């Protein structure tokens, strides 16, 4: 029995292809990228060894600082909204709409499947001021507020980006968390109700702890996706005005392909990697502590 489950040839057949592709597409380029960070140039122009210059440049380049700050601010704000709105929707599906939630669930999930560029173009026209006011400004005009040029300041553009990405992703988190809530055994909720728990109390003491694993998973997944934000901002306003809403990712892309500096681009990519790693470890460690406390 142990022999069959330990069949060396079968292990190679099952694992070999995946491991090979993984090493070739992920591991080799990662190492390669670290090598790049000590060079300057591009494949077309040739490379030159520059030692630690790229890393030193990180600390003097003001755009790195501002895009790092923007990335973190964006990730924290959008993650909180995604989880809170997603969880609220999931609770609505499970405890209020119940069997009838399918329609709303499907509807709220719609934007998730839409290509990000299409959504960004849609939002850039929704919030437009020229050549014609978009729906948002028209509504503001109706209640007596002057049209706002949403893309002229970094702060305004930030909230448009937040609104857009929340619209695009809330349905996803709702379904993810819904799946977790549905898995809670009916008997547990029923017996808690018999014991007199209801409403917010039921949610806080029974539902929330029971859905902790899926919440943690959503937070880790969301954080990693949010720190890597790129598509939606590129298509919405290309990080403008200036570099006010440029996340690290977009800055890295521009450095590499617009200014053909692969070396410095790789160095910024390393910063992104360290950021994601640190964030994931943080959530992972604090969640471990939480879970062990409960059990």
């Amino acid at each position: 029995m142990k022999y069959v489950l330990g069949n060396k040839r079968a292990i190679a057949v099952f694992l070999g292809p995946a491991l090979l592709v993984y090493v070739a597409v992920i591991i080799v380029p990662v190492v390669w990228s670290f090598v790049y960070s000590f060079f300057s140039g591009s494949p077309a122009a040739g490379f030159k060894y520059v030692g630690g210059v790229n890393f030193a440049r990180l600390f003097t380049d003001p755009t790195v600082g501002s895009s790092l700050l923007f990335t973190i601010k964006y990730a924290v704000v959008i993650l909180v909204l995604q989880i809170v709105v997603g969880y609220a929707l999931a609770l609505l599906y499970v405890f209020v709409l119940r069997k009838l939630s399918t329609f709303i669930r499907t509807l709220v999930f719609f934007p998730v499947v839409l290509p990000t560029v299409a959504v960004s173009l849609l939002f850039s026209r929704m919030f437009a001021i020229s050549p014609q006011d978009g729906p948002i400004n028209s509504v503001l005009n109706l209640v007596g507020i002057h049209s706002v040029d949403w893309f002229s300041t970094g702060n305004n553009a930030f909230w448009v980006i937040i609104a857009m990405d929340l619209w695009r992703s809330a349905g996803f988190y709702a379904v993810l968390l819904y799946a977790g809530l549905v898995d809670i055994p009916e008997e547990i909720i029923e017996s808690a109700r018999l014991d007199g728990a209801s409403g917010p109390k039921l949610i806080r003491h029974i539902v929330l702890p029971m859905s902790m694993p899926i919440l943690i998973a959503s937070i880790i997944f969301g954080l990693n996706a949010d720190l890597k934000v790129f598509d939606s901002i590129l298509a919405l306003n290309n990080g403008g005005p200036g570099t006010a809403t440029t996340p690290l990712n977009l800055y890295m892309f521009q450095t590499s392909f617009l200014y053909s500096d692969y070396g410095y681009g790789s160095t910024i990519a390393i910063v992104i990697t360290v950021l994601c790693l640190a964030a994931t470890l943080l959530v992972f460690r604090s969640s471990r502590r939480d879970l062990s406390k409960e059990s």
Partner: protein
Amino acid sequence: MTTNAVRSGGVNARDRRRAEPSGVKFGRLSRKTLVNILIGVILVVEIYPLFWILASSFKTQNQFANEPLWSLPTSLNFQNYVDAWNTAQLGQDAINSITVTVISMVAILILGTAAAFALEVMVWKGRGSILLFIVGGLMVPIQLILLPLFSIYFQLGLTNSLAPLIITYIGQGLPLTVFLMATYFRSVPRELFEACTLDGGSIYRCFISVGLPLVRNGIFTMSLLLFFSIWNDLIVALTFNSSQSLSTIQVGLLNFNGEYGATLYGPLFAAISIVVFATLIVYMLINQQVMKGLTAGSVKG
């Protein structure tokens, strides 16, 4: 109103069991109103943008300039759609997107599930570290591997095809797939696999006829996740895009906005409408299939 009646009817039996304090009636009523308002808000937020884009796609350039925004198009003007289709090559883009997504998805699911089986179900030294090694790939952002991959594909002469996209997506999708499928295999009682091998089944047979059916929920979840991430990817598609005939829908739309979008409002809205509503139709077809699959599964189990 009828749906509300049905809903409360269904719930009543359960609610009656718990003792209800007096004064709940008022709370109930306002709660119902609150829920209805909430549903109304959700409907507007989700539907209005889509409706607006559709209505705008039928407007002429003249209507954009001279009529208020919420005016409806006076006639169904399909010229915008013809213009969008011809200048943006959306048909070719869609074929590219579908090709890339389907091939990558199938490859990731096969490779990832097999690897997860070897790492979680089979017993051998070092499987824990290999699993950690692969899952560690989750930490690698695509940006870190983009530039070296570009050099590799360039040197291999692959740049003038869809291969760079497909290869990159497969590598990128594996860590999450292996991680998730390993989790699903872990939740299957080990006795089932031991019984299978005791019954004399080969390890391949145990994988296909015992393992796969038991983790089909995981495969299903994973394929949804993969579909959306690949279909909606922009950064990989944009980096390795070498010619207009190899653009995916995302890249095509971005280029169309850059080249014509500032001036040609009608065709831009038409292009967005085509992409949005085609995706929604596909989604609705899949969604039906999904519901069927789930019900069939639960009846059997």
